[in-house]
């Protein structure tokens, strides 16, 4: 439904997108993941024909975003990150205006608005001016607007940002629900969100796609490099690190607070060797566990690879 190929966007000398390519299949929920400023919003703005690209191909529902913008927009429901709304309008007036603008036929309009007020939980505020709404309600109004013309494709830019934990859960449930009928591209920098909601992930960093796969497969790929976390007492850290580093199958040992993180070669289990080495050294082992990589670690890994090489990344930084 969405096809992006070698998309480039330059602002003056700055390259915001550097040959970005990905596809979103019909009925898929694709998570667009990246740190702030990675180029997520830029990509989404190009896909909604708000921003022209410098080079490359972008197609939505088979229509080219540059040549057939109105066709594309007709099929896309877009929720921009800042959820811009007209503060002076009432929720019902706003939805009515948006429904007209998106060519919802007159006969269906009020029924469709009622339906969305229900789905998005806007019942209490439907007569209130938007200026009086909380952030959570504004987000829902924005979502209702994106859905109003029942577009086959939804593009949601950071749909859960600024919501409280309960609202976040509600919105995620809603998105999963919507994923049954819509093709969804959603951006986020919150990792658990992707694992919970998305069928596939594109990780973008500094305008480049650095990884794309299902959350499970991404984890699998990188899980090979599983890690063992140990806490050792009674020995100088340097010496402990050196000893552990000599164990066959250990790639690197790095400190992480009071603990040591041991990077292990794929497929090896070094826990017994670690235990013996610690005992042989005359130290005490107070903790030993394997640490499956979360998507968060993967994210930090792929987005820092460039700057820091293959060095293991302390877990805290990922939070």
């Amino acid at each position, binding site marked *: 439904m969405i096809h992006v190929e070698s998309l480039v966007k330059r602002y003056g000398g700055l390259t915001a997108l550097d040959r970005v390519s990905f596809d979103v299949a019909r009925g898929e929920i694709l998570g667009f993941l990246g740190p702030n400023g990675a180029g997520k919003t830029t990509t989404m*703005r190009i896909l909604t024909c708000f*921003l022209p690209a410098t080079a490359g191909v972008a197609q939505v529902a088979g229509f080219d975003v540059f040549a057939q913008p109105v066709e594309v927009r007709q099929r896309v429901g877009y929720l921009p990150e800042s959820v811009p709304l007209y503060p*002076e309008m009432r929720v019902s007036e706003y939805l009515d205006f948006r429904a*007209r603008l*998106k060519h919802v036929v007159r006969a269906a309009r009020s029924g469709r608005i009622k339906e969305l007020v229900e789905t998005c939980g806007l019942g209490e505020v439907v007569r209130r001016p938007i200026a009086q709404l909380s952030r959570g309600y504004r987000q829902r109004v924005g979502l209702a607007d994106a859905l109003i013309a029942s577009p086959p494709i939804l593009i949601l830019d950071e749909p859960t940002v600024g919501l409280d934990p309960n609202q976040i859960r509600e919105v995620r449930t809603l998105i999963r629900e919507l994923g049954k009928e819509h093709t969804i591209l959603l951006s986020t920098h919150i990792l658990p969100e992707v694992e919970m909601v998305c069928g596939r992930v594109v990780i973008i960093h500094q305008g480049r796609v650095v990884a794309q796969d299902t959350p499970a497969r991404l984890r699998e790929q990188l899980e090979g490099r599983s890690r063992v976390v140990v806490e050792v007492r009674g020995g100088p850290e340097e010496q402990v690190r050196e000893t552990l580093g000599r164990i066959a199958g250990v790639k690197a040992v790095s400190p992480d607070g009071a603990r040591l993180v041991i990077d292990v070669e794929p497929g090896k289990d070094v826990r017994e060797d670690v235990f013996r080495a610690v005992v042989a050294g005359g130290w005490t082992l107070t903790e030993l566990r394997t640490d499956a990589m979360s998507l968060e670690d993967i994210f930090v890994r792929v987005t820092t690879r460039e700057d820091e090489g293959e060095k293991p990344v302390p877990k805290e930084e990922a939070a």
Partner: protein
Amino acid sequence: MNLLTIARRELLAYFYSPIAYVVLALFLLIQGIYFWLFLTFLSQPGAPPGAVMSYFFGGTILFWMSTIFSVSLLSMRLLAEERRSGTFETLLTAPVRDIEVVLGKYLACLLFYLLLWLPEVIYVALLWRFAGRPDLGPIAAGYLGAFLVGAALMSFGLLASALTRNQIIAATLAFVFSWALVLVGVAQDFVTSQSLRDTLGYVHMFKLMEDFGRGIVDTRHVVFLLTLTVLGLYATTKVVELKKGA
């Protein structure tokens, strides 16, 4: 259809904002004072001959002051506010064309501008009742002139609003654009070249409004004002195109 949807929302937005009421009230007050001034002035013995309404529309700077004031204030919000608040993005990612957005907004402010002039019909009624029957032809021409001039200046007001996110700057720009357009013809008095004088005569807005006020509907004037309108709207559409995502 999109155009009307946008115009409808924009008109409603006028009635939600205090600015529109302030403009409406001030415009009526100022116009009322002018009417009274002209009436008093022309009733004096030894006053130059002429109809009240023709002075009302042309021949003095007063018409321009109130028109430019209201055009600047009515157009400033239209696009600047959309860009400031970010609704520009939701608006332009809906299935609408840029030109529909521009024309929809333009239609709204033009209708509001007409609304400003509507109550002035009462002056004609007053004259009709108390001062004998004024000649309606020149009055209608005066209204036409006020409408066309407003339409032309408003398109540049909209352009000003497209150029910035700040309403105050938009109003100031609109004010400057309007006076520049109105005054360019006045340069006629300062040039020596005859051909340049003639050319400037075509775009002399003071003289043009004087003609309308006297009941002269000159096709050249009408064409000039319509050309300005189209030019302003075209430039606005181009600016909207350029400002997308910027």
